[in-house]
């Protein structure tokens, strides 16, 4: 542990400064409590999420390269992003910049034209969860916990892009083989098909994880949550029903996009009278914040559309 760095560049992403501010606020609380430090990446731009890559290849490379350049300028070789979409975008750019010399050179040329410092190296991006697990870990969480999440049965929802695809995320199976067959593998990365970092962190805070495979990494409809409502609705229904039927009283999330999609469609499914979809969602950092003794308002639980407060109150956690 401790090989990523205690102080890193923080790329919150657009969502965390808007509708998903609860994730940002709770992230900062948890990071501080665990003795780590985030250096806000001043004047960053959108990563392009899952959208701009479908429109423009080079444009998307540039968006991410600019953010990388900002990080380097502030002296960081590590970027931490709390959003699956942002960490995916940055890691995807990292992949193409590392593996395709032509892309790298072209990007640098264009950065210069745009008055942005070219990249003399490529900083690595980690998902917040991976960073917290490796730099603090369950033990530290346990030590800091003053209000254990007792009675909380959590369905840990990782979503798609935290572990996939391994080309970008550098995840790999923890069991079997020596793992060295993957040239871009990363020691700190979670297990690709069976991630467990969030489970362990929340368990360390006193929560109980319910069985949630394979829905823990099943898609929520994500980038199509507005443009393809039918598919998104069905996917969210499958996720929520599995959580509920496996005994969960809360879903923990680690991506603002997944979180929004789950909450939005949860409400719409409930309006339509669909059964077993009423499990509320909270960011894992909100739950950790509560465990560390912070209040409902501190971790902005009121922002959550799915309103997890009653469940937490009943268990005496909030």
């Amino acid at each position: 542990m401790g090989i990523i760095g205690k102080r890193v560049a923080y790329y919150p992403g657009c969502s965390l400064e808007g509708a998903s501010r609860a994730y940002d606020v709770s992230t900062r609380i948890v990071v501080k409590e665990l003795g780590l430090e985030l250096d806000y990446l001043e004047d960053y731009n959108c990563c392009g999420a899952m959208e701009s890559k479908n429109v423009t290849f080079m444009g998307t490379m540039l968006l991410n390269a600019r953010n990388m350049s900002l990080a380097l300028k502030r002296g960081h070789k590590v970027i931490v992003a709390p959003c699956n979409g942002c960490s995916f975008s940055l890691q995807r750019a990292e992949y193409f910049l590392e593996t395709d010399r032509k892309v790298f050179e072209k990007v640098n040329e264009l950065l210069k034209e745009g008055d942005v410092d070219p990249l003399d190296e490529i900083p690595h991006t980690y998902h917040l969860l991976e960073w917290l697990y490796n730099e603090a870990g369950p033990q530290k969480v346990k030590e800091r916990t003053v209000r254990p999440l007792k009675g909380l049965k959590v369905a840990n929802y990782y979503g798609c892009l935290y572990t996939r695809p391994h080309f970008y995320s550098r995840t790999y199976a923890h069991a079997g083989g020596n793992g060295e067959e993957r040239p871009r593998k990363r020691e700190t990365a979670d297990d690709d098909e069976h991630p467990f970092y969030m489970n362990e962190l929340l368990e360390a805070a006193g929560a109980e994880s319910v069985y949630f495979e394979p829905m823990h990494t099943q898609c929520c409809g994500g980038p199509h949550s507005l443009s393809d409502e039918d598919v998104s609705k069905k996917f969210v229904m499958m996720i929520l029903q599995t959580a509920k039927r496996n005994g969960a009283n809360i879903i923990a999330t680690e991506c603002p996009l997944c979180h929004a999609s789950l909450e939005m469609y949860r409400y719409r499914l409930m309006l339509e009278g669909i059964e077993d979809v009423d499990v509320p969602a909270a960011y894992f950092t909100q739950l950790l914040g509560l465990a560390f003794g912070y209040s409902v308002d501190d971790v902005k639980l009121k922002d959550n559309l799915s309103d997890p407060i009653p469940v937490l109150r009943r268990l005496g956690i909030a």
Partner: protein
Amino acid sequence: MPIHERSLIESERVLRKERLVIDGIDVSGDWNLIILPRTVEDYDLDFAKEIMESPDGKTIQQCYQCSYCTASCPVHNYWDDRYNPRHFIYLARLGMVDELQKRVDVMWRCVSCHKCTHRCPKGVLVEDVLKVILRVMYKRGLIGDYPSKKFDQFFTESVLEYGRIEDGELLFGWMEKQGYKIKKDPILRKPIPFFSDIPRWLKDMVSKPIKEGNISFIMLNAKHMLFHPRTKEWNKFKQVLRRVMEEEGALAKGG
């Protein structure tokens, strides 16, 4: 002559004639149904080449059609089995454009979950490749404005303009594009959710923080809706970005 599976005969290829005369002989009655042949007459290799030339599309050449991707795909498994990444890759690699076009109604449905790319035993960046196929098809006018395309374009152009996106703009802007009447204030032309004709779930969603008196949340989002968050050092970079997108043919048509 082999009897074609009925499902392979598209109705456009079936010609039914009341009366049919061949070489002066009236064969009506016996031979009044003709099924036009479906022979592939050539490949569109330029189409395939354009996909392979994109850095995110070149791994298309590594595919060996094992269908691990399709077998993993949630859209294929839980939504519509006509969505078949393996098949799309095969068609695109040979430039069988008309076959791809028969599937345009499902081709855009990829939710970018990346199970395909993650699991591909040959290292094909399946998700990227499929998006490149769509990109090239769109550029060549082989596929119309499919729903996610509209959203992607809307999103990307917002990023291009401001450097950042804003949730409210995306949500209400998108609803407006869907045909909902969004009421706007007369000065800044910003949406006013409560007087808009929007679905109930959205109204409820917007009114939750108001009911609960979550003032700071309302203030933050109202501020963002009024003053779009933007990246400060953006203008010069934006020009480069716009040029790159123009070169790629990535800006909205006519826009």
